């Protein structure tokens, strides 16, 4: 497994005489590298039942604030899964409603406005359950694995995932800036509903 790294690096480490040092450095690099680049062909997504049961749209709760997000989506640390999410985002016509993040029939996904929540489980719920003002439910169309990959990709559009994980190119003509060069947005929960009625 050390073949992943340049031989000169190992030699220099060995010459330094610190065998433990080599192991520590290599392990650290391996851990980071592996998570980002690892390809798992099944599994790896969060437990959707747990995610759904813990989902909270807002932090306002009687008795004091409760954090909105509990779920870590492992795909958000994985470049392959996020790229897969991008491919699925086009294949399942997410792109024809939300464009490449700027929005169309549906709202923009690369800005800081999140009507139904910006946390992974909120977005997962939006995709799977649908939302009343026009977002269709994709439950049955997508596997849980696919949905969580799309969640990772959607969050990459506003730089909510590590830069090294976000896709950096598209198959289509250049549109919005590459996901890995997007400005990080601070998602705002107090966004208006999409219904056309005033007051919003």
């Amino acid at each position: 497994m050390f073949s992943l790294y340049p031989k000169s690096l190992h030699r220099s480490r060995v010459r330094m005489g610190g065998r433990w040092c080599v192991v520590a450095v290599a392990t650290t690099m391996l851990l980071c590298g592996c998570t980002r680049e690892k390809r798992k062909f099944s599994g790896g997504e969060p437990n959707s039942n747990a995610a759904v049961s813990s989902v909270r749209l807002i932090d306002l709760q009687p008795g004091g604030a409760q954090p909105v997000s509990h779920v870590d989506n492992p795909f958000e640390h994985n470049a392959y899964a996020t790229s897969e999410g991008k491919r699925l985002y086009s294949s399942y016509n997410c792109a024809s409603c939300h464009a490449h993040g700027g929005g169309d029939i549906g709202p923009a996904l690369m800005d800081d406005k999140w009507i139904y929540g910006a946390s992974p489980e909120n977005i997962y719920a939006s995709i799977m359950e649908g939302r009343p003002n026009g977002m269709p439910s994709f439950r049955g169309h997508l596997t849980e694995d696919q949905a969580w990959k799309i969640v990772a990709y959607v969050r990459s559009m506003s730089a909510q995932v590590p830069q090294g994980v976000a896709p950096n190119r598209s198959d289509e003509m250049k549109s919005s800036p590459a996901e890995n060069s997007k400005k990080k947005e601070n998602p705002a929960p107090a966004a208006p509903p999409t219904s056309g009625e005033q007051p919003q």
Partner: protein
Amino acid sequence: MVFALSLALCHALKAQAQPNPARPPDADWPIAAKDDSNMRYSTLNQITADNVHSLQVAWTFGTGVNRGHEGAPIVVGSTMYIITPYPNYLYALDLKQSGQIKWRFEPKPDAASQGEACCDHVARGCAYDDGKVYINTLDGQTIAVDAESGHEVWRTKLGDIHIGETITMAPIVIDGKVIVGNSGSQLGVRGWIAALDGKTGKVVWRAYNTGPDSDCLIGPDFHPYYADDKGKDLGVTTWPGEQWKIGGATVWGWISYDPQLHLLFHGTGDPASWNSEVRKGPNKWSSGIFARDPDTGQAKWFYQYTVHDLYGHDGINESIVVDLVLKPGEPKQKVLLHADRNGYLYVLNRETGQVISANPFVRITAYKGVDLKTGHIQFNPDKKPEVGKTIRDIAPAAPGGKDWQPSAFSPRTGYMYLPHQTLSMDFEEIPVNYIAGTPYVGADAKFYPDPQEPGDGSMGAFTAWDPVAGKAVWNIKERFPVWCGTVATAGDVVFYGTMDAWFKAVDARSGKVLWKFKVDSGIVGQPITYLGPDGKQYVAILSGVGGWPGSVVSNDLDPDDPVSDHGFGGAMRDLPKYTAKGGALYVFALP
């Protein structure tokens, strides 16, 4: 006794709602296009080029809705009716009391329909006939509402949002039949036009615009002018496989009617999807015009403006019914005037469907002309889209040289008045999947101001066009697409509005802007003029930015993604600097 009294009262109230025969001609404005000709010309002449500078606000009314207000108010007697975008409120306003609400009808369309409408949640108008106001809802219903009481008379479900069908067009009433068509080419629906019995809401006939002749109501009466449109079941055979079942060709635009010929004329939308490789062939009967018998729906003739439409240049724009002397000394000819999305202004013989002339009214790179012998539009092979290849500078862009925004014709000047846009685009076809109820687009597009004509960054134009000479007379440039209808008057004043929220009066002959007024929000509506109960001429317009180009504001899109909003996002980047959303009616009068 009480019953008899209330019955009598009821009758009296009903009588009030009828157009008053004592009212002078053009006092009312009973359908979105004013009358069946779609001329949008009013003989009212109190407001003239000489006095329009003193026009001022008479009253205003907030609609309570934020999306694009593309509708026309209508006026019958002393009542004005307004249909709003989703949730499609229908208001009756009392013109004797500065627009005091008489009643509000809430049709409660399915909220999910908001996710099925391609280009904002618009409603382009309602229609009055025989004591009822007819409206369409975004979720595909046609509803008759009692004009006096605001009570529902009947409702008929015509479209299904689960396959992407919505209704956004303004209905028209011909001999007691309400004529309606669907929207949703962008979602791969199958286009149709239907006639409903105005008394009961029962569907009298429904004609599809793709599929077998029996579905398209094409029978022995069908006599198209050009050879390409003759043959059996062309609505099937000009498509690969069963692609016609999701082939678009909707009827979301304008319908006109000639009572002498007893023919209605309606355009058909673009073929689905924008990825043209999945639908090789001429794609009948998309991007063209049908003449039909309004009693039976049977087709009389058809002409296809854009054969195998590659750029979303659908044929739904208005066709104005007018009789014109085309050559000096010759008798008047029965023609249709039609400024198509593809950039050509057509003069058609409305008895036969023959193209008399087709002249470009904007810069065109996508085509090289229209062959008047065959009727064929000539494609420019350099601009043919391909999957995975970006084709640049396709003009006009997908919204066309002119979109749905209706033009007007003044018999006094002989000019057409065209509100339109000057856009070019980069376009790339991409692989496309059909999933019912989601968009079936298959292309990325980026629109931008036409780089050559005018080439100064402006995207909108308001043009007076001489249809006999086939050329522009004068032209006013605007920063944003002029996505608003227009009205021509016998006072030789023409009105239109802009997306940066100015309502303007223009000299019909010279094109000089005589008066303008800044309103609440960008204008994408249709101006009307009518005679108030006090005998004064009024001009009314809805403001409230939105529609396809206005979605950047009305749906809070992020223009950093230029392909957002089906390609309009980047072009409309600056719109939020000029206008915010919000619907309001403005009514103007002389002091």
